[in-house]
C-alpha cells in the first residue's frame, strides 16, 4: 500500500509541476481540480485502510470533504469568479516557464537536502513521501510568487493547502478530525473571501493584475 501512496505522492508533485507550466487561468483551475482529486484518492485509500484496520471512519469523511470542497465546489467558485471578472489575456508570469520549472526542481532537491537529516523523517519511503508533499507546498508558494493575476495567487494558496493536506495525511494519517474539519471550513471561507476581494479589485482597478496593487510603499 505504501508503494501506492508513494506513487500518488509523486503524481501529486507532478501535478504541481504541471500547474507551474500552465499559462491560462482556466487550466490552472483544472490542474488544481486534478491535484485535489489525487489527494482525495490518497485520503480514500488511507481512509479505507484505517476503517479496515482500526475501525475509524473519520479519514473517509475527510476524503468526502475534499471531494466536495476541493474537487467540486472551490474550482466551480473560482471558475465563476474568473468568468465574472473581465479578463484580458496577458502574460501572467514573471519568469518564463522553463526557468520556473527548473526552480521548482531545485525546490524539490532543496526539500530533500534539508529534510534528509531530520530524525524521524529520514526513513526511506516515508522520506520520499514527505519530501514530495512538502515540495508541493513550496511549489505552491512559488506559484504565488510567479503569477501576477489575483486568481493565480488564490490557486497558489490552494496548492499550498493541498500540500499541507497531503503532508498531514501521509505523515500522520491526517490531523485530529476536529482540526481537519476546522481547516476545511477556514479554507472555504478564505477562498470565498479572496474571491470576493478579486471582485472588488476588479471593480476598483479595472484589472485583477496584482502588479497594479503597488500604491502602498515605504
Amino acid at each position: 500500500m505504501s508503494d501506492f501512496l508513494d506513487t500518488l505522492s509523486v503524481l501529486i508533485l507532478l501535478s504541481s509541476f504541471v500547474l507551474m507550466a500552465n499559462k491560462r487561468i482556466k487550466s490552472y483551475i483544472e490542474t488544481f481540480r486534478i491535484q485535489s482529486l489525487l489527494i482525495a484518492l490518497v485520503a480514500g485509500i488511507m481512509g479505507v485502510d484505517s476503517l479496515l484496520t482500526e475501525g475509524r471512519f473519520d479519514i473517509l469523511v475527510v476524503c468526502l470533504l475534499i471531494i466536495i470542497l476541493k474537487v467540486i465546489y472551490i474550482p466551480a467558485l473560482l471558475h465563476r469568479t474568473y468568468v465574472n471578472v473581465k479578463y484580458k489575456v496577458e502574460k501572467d508570469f514573471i519568469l518564463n516557464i522553463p526557468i520556473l520549472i527548473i526552480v521548482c526542481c531545485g525546490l524539490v532537491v532543496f526539500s530533500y537536502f534539508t529534510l534528509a537529516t531530520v530524525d524521524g523523517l529520514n526513513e526511506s519511503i516515508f522520506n520520499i513521501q514527505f519530501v514530495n508533499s512538502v515540495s508541493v507546498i513550496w511549489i505552491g508558494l512559488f506559484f504565488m510568487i510567479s503569477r501576477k493575476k489575483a486568481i493565480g495567487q488564490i490557486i497558489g494558496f490552494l496548492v499550498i493547502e493541498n500540500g499541507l493536506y497531503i503532508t498531514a495525511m501521509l505523515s500522520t494519517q491526517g490531523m485530529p478530525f476536529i482540526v481537519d474539519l476546522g481547516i476545511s471550513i477556514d479554507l472555504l471561507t478564505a477562498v470565498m473571501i479572496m474571491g470576493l476581494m478579486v471582485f472588488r479589485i476588479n471593480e476598483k482597478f479595472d484589472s485583477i493584475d496584482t502588479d497594479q496593487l503597488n500604491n502602498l510603499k515605504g
Partner: protein
Amino acid sequence: MELFLRNLFLASVLLYLFGAVISLILMKRQKACNIIANFICIAASALGAAASVIKILWVNGPIGIFGFKSAIPFVSLDMKVDNLSAIFLLALSILVLCVSIYSIGYISHYIGKRNIGLFNFLYTTFILSMIFVLTSANAVFFYISWEAMSLLSYFLVVFESEKEKNQRAGRLYIIMTHLATAFLLIGFMIIYSYTKSFDLFGSSAGIPEAARNIIFILLLIGFGTKAGVIPLHIWLPYAHPAAPSNVSALMSGIMIKTAIYGLIRFLLCYLGIEHTWWGVVILVLGIASAVLGVAYALMEHNIKRLLAFHSVENIGIILIGLGVCFIALAQNNELVGGLALTAALLHTFNHTLFKGGLFLGAGSIQYAAHTKDIEKLGGLIKKMPVTALFVLCFSLAISAIVPFNGFISEWLTYQSLFANIIPGQAGLNLISILAVAALGLTGALAAACFVKLFGISFLGLPRSNQALKAKEVPVTMNIGMGILAALCLIVGLFPFTILRLIDQVAIDLVGSSILGQLHGGFLIVYYPLKVSANSISPLALLIVLIALILISLLVIRIIGGKYIERKYGTWDCGFEALNARMQYSATGFSKPIKIVFKILFRPTRKTTFEGDWLYHPETIEYTTSFTSVFEEYLYYPMIRTIKQFSQRTKFRIQTGSIHNYLLYIFIMVLALMLYNRFV
C-alpha cells in the same frame, strides 16, 4: 538631627510637588497661579538650600530620604543625599530661589497669551526631576529621573512652539539627549551585568578592567552630550535660546551640571579612577570645549546663543579641573586630586551663579526690548541701570576677573594644573601646559566676548526703536538677579564660605582635606606641596583698589582743583551728527578675531551693490556668515547619509509588490530550513 534633616528634604520635595499640582489646579487663574507657584518654589528652594548646608556641615554619611520599591522588577525610587548631592542641591536651590523670584515678574508678560498653569507645572516638575537626578541612590531611578528631566526640559524648550526654530531646537535637543541616554543605559546595564545591582552606593569590585574602560567611554558620551562637550554640543546653542529665559537659566545653570554630577558620581565615587588616560581624555575634551566654546560664542549676536556657547566653554573649564583630578587620583596623588576636584566643583557652583544670572539678564533684555539680537540693542544702561549693573557683575565674573567668583575657581584650576606638572612625565605635562594656554586664551576671549555683549547692548546709542523704547523691568526680576550678583561677589571675596562645604565633598570622595592647604580665614591662601607660598586675596585687592581710588581722587582734587565737566557730542569725524549707525557693531567688534581664527569659522561674505557705479552705489548690502564646522562637516553629512540610507532601503524592501513580499517569506523559510540542516 538626621530625622529632622530628612523631613526638611522631604518637605522641600513635597512643596515642589504641591506647587506642581497647584499650578495645574489654578490653570484658569493665571495671575494667581504664577505668584503662588513661584512662592511655593521659593519656599521649597529655601528649605532645600538650608537642608543641604546642614547636611554638609553637621551630618556625616549619606542619609536616605525615602525609598519606594515598585512591584515591577528593578524599579525602585530611592532618594539618598550625600555631600556630593548636597553641594549640587545647594547650587540648584540657590538658583531656583533666584529664578523663581525673577519668574514672578518675567512670566507676567505671558499672562493671557500662554498657558501659565502648564508652564509652572512643567517648571516645577523640571526642578523636581533635577533634584531626583541629584539624589537618586540607584541607577534605575537615576535613569528615570534623567529621562524625565530631558522630557520636561524638552517641553519647556518648545514652550513657545509656534516658531519653527524652537521646534527644531527642541527636536534636536530631545534626539541628542535621548541617544546619549542610550549610552548611559548601556553603561548602567554593563555595570549591572557584573555586579547584579543597580545600587550607586554599592561596590564596583566585580567589574573587570576592560568593562570599566568601556563603561567610562559610554558614560563619557552619555554625560558629555548633556554637558555640551564639544563635539557633542550642537543641541545646546539651539535649545537654550529657544526656552523662556528663566528656564534657560535653569538649564544652563544647573541641568547641564547634572552631567558633571553624573561623571563624578559614577566614575569617581562608584567606579574609582584607575587609569590615567581617563583623566587625559576628559582634560583634552575640556580644553577643546573651553577654547572652541568661547570662540563660537564670540561669533554669536543672539544673546542667548552666545551665552549657550559660553556654557560649553565653562563646562570645558570644569572638565579641565575634573580631568586633572582624575589624572592625579590615578597616580594616587590625593592632594592634587582634591585640589582639582575642589576647583571643578567650585567652578560648577560659580557657573551656576553667574550663568544663571546672565540668562536672567538676557531675559530682562528680551522682556524690555523684545529682541535677542544684540545688533538691535544699545544704550540700555540708561534705560535699565539696575539690570546693566548686574549684567556687568556677571560679565566680570564669567570672564574670571577679580574680585568676582569666577576668578577664584579659575585660580584653583590653574593651581591644580600647576601642581599637576611633575617632572618626569613629559606627555602629561605638555597637556597640562596646553590646558594652561587654553585657559588663558579662553579667559581673554571670554572677556572680549562679554565686553562685546555688555558694550554693544548696554552702552552707546540704541540701534533700534525697540531698544529706544525699553524700560526697566519689574522689581522682582531685578531682585532675583541682584541676589545672584551679590552671591557672585560674596563668593569672590569670601571664597571660604563655599570652600568649606566643598571640602567636605572632597574629603568624602578623595579622602583628604585640602582645607588645610587653603587656610587663611577670609583670605584664600594655598600652599603648594613643597616650597614657596602662592596666595591670593581678592578682599585685600578690593580694599586696595578702593583705597587707591579714594587717594587718587584726593590727590587729583588737590592738584587739579574742582572737577568741572563739559558735555559735548562724541567726535563724529566731521559729519553732520553722530548716529547709531556710526557705532561699531557686534559683527565689527568680533571681526578681527573671526579673521584670526578663520579656520574655525570658515567665514563667508557677500556684498551686493545697487546703483550705477561701484563708488557711488545707492545701497550696499553686506552679509557675512560663518559655518559651524562640526555641524557642517560632521553632523550634516552623517544625517544626510542616514536619511538616504533609510529612504533607499525603505523603497527597496517595501516595494508595494506582493510578489516580493511572498518571496521574503519564501526565502525566510528556506533559509531557516537550511539553518536547521546545519545546526
